[in-house]
């Protein structure tokens, strides 16, 4: 089959690779009909996530048709149309039973590695480095899905691929980020990053009852989407001092909740902290650029919540934890428990309350994926979200 393989920093290629096979009783094989490039795939593309190996197949947002199932998957049949959560979960361990499926104890065959780095291992992920299990990803014609009796969710034929594909990751991720904000009537929520996850977080914050949402970015078409599709106000961080602006727009209180939908490769306009991070990262003295997180903590109003769907990987420098402490903030972090949110969001899409396809700007065949990565990284041609059709 054809698949997109990683070969080093900014080097991805579509190659012929062996077809996936059923390796365990609870496996299924999916013929991928649609798959997307995630903002977090750009971290892999930039080579800032460790333990990726040359030849790894990327992609963790995918859906398709079941073409083979193991004997331990009574819930699926050949021909079923499914969307696949990017977090692999067994459904039986204590975290899974509590609904915390991205913290599954049993899906990472390389659990010893994150255990050494982080103390404990989270779940395995598709196409996201050997530290997360080394699973082949979904930017391919076929993909093997472990624990297929727990993972893939069937989707109705009335909905198009473009409407349900993002249930695999970014829609639940944006939603969980907003839910983590404990939004109440009258709340103001600020969102750093108007990429797809940020946009879904804004949309979700509105659905969950926020009075106002303020988007922070510098890419004009993304800010326009935040305004038009999500009903957000916007701040262009190239043109304004974000902290002053947020204070002014909230009567001096600061937002009730701040969402960092940027993560470890933040860009920022010339602040001291941003330059400091860039220099340290260049010389491999730092693992993360965290200007968005710093601003979110400093901007957040007293007793508020900072919710972090953006990915961080290492030991962070100059985190204003003193500010978080002084203001009694709540920090909510972590990979998305996709299985927990997916059915509810699917219902919203079926009812017409939500149509996540508004973020799609480009649909290209799989063979053009290397160009699409480049375009997405450069945010060229108004690129917000790329869908690949294998």
């Amino acid at each position, binding site marked *: *089959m054809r*698949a997109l*393989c990683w*070969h080093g920093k900014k080097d991805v*290629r579509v*190659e012929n*690779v*062996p*077809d*996936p*096979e059923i*390796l*365990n*009783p*609870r496996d299924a094989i999916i013929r991928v009909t649609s798959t997307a490039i995630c903002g977090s795939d750009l971290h892999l593309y930039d080579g800032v996530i460790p333990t990726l*190996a*040359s*030849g*790894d*197949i990327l992609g963790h947002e995918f859906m398709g048709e079941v073409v083979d199932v193991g004997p*331990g998957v009574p819930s699926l049949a050949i021909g079923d149309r499914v969307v696949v959560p990017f977090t692999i979960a*067994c459904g*039986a*361990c*204590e975290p899974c*039973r509590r609904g915390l499926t991205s913290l599954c*104890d*049993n*899906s*990472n*065959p*390389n*659990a*010893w590695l994150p255990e050494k780095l982080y103390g404990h291992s989270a779940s*395995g992920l598709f196409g996201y480095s*050997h530290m997360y*299990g*080394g*699973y*082949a990803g979904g930017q391919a014609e076929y993909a*093997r899905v*472990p*624990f297929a009796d727990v993972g893939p969710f069937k989707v109705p034929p009335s909905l198009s691929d473009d409407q349900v594909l993002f249930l695999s990751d970014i829609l639940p991720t944006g939603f969980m980020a907003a839910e983590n904000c404990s939004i109440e009537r009258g709340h103001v929520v600020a969102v750093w990053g108007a990429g797809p996850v940020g946009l879904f977080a804004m949309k979700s914050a509105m659905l969950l009852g926020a009075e106002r949402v303020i988007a922070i970015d510098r890419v004009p078409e993304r800010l326009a989407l935040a305004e038009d599709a999500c009903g957000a106000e916007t701040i262009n961080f190239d043109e304004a001092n974000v902290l002053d602006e947020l204070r002014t727009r909230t009567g001096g209180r600061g937002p009730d909740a701040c969402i960092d939908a940027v993560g470890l490769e933040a860009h920022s306009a010339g602040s001291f902290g941003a330059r400091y991070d860039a220099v340290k990262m260049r010389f491999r003295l730092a693992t993360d650029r965290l200007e968005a997180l710093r601003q979110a903590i400093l901007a957040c109003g007293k007793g508020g919540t900072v919710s972090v769907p953006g990915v961080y990987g290492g030991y962070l420098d100059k985190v204003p934890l003193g500010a978080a402490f002084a203001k009694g903030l709540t920090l909510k972090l972590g990979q998305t428990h996709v299985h927990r949110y997916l059915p509810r969001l699917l219902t919203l899409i079926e009812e017409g309350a939500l149509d996540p396809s508004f973020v799609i700007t480009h649909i290209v065949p799989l063979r053009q994926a290397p160009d699409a990565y480049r375009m997405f990284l450069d945010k060229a041609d108004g690129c917000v979200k790329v869908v690949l059709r294998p």
Partner: protein
Amino acid sequence: MTRNLADWERLLSIGLGTALVAGAIARRRALGPAALAGAALVLRGASGTCPAYSAAGVSSRETGRLAVASSERHRRIVSTVTINRPARDVFMFWRTLENLPAIFNGLDGVERIDDRYTRWSWYGPGGVRFEWTAEMTEASNRLSWRSLPGADLDTSGTVRFVDLARGGCEVTVTMDYNQPGGPAASAALWMMGRTPHGEIREDLRRLKHVLETGELPVGGHPSGKRTATFRALQTVAS
């Protein structure tokens, strides 16, 4: 670190160190390499502890000459895992010895000789084969074993299975053993990333995987073209 130098070696160390420092001062090189080495020797003698001996697992204190330290011969490992199943289920799984080769890396076979004795064969790192007969005893929530004299691997230990109020159980292995091959083998295992402690931890993780999900997770397939280094590392790991 515990003391690992005999008295004669402490005096020798202090004497040699003092001479080196004195010589360096006489040559007006009080901060040169000779002076620093001398100071380290004085410190080594005065404290009675040699870090290099400690790392190599040897001592001159116990017998008066350089020998493997007793703390290196007898080792104890304690490792524990939480499994989301009742203790009784895990206990029954473990005492069904045919289940164990799928869980314990390198375990080739376990044979029940009679109610008390079992015969074990195990391939250690590097493909070295060990065989031993063990006496097994069990109580309601624990299993114990002790190898008989003449075993390739001198080992004894206990596995405890304890139910938790939150659901599931804790399984704790306490194992005593003599490291075959002594400190040299310990060091080699450490270099290979296969310490006994790490191995037991992974064994317990496999036990958890199988009891909670019925299978062991596998990743890494398929893939595009791998580098020679990656393939070599995979070969070493398997």
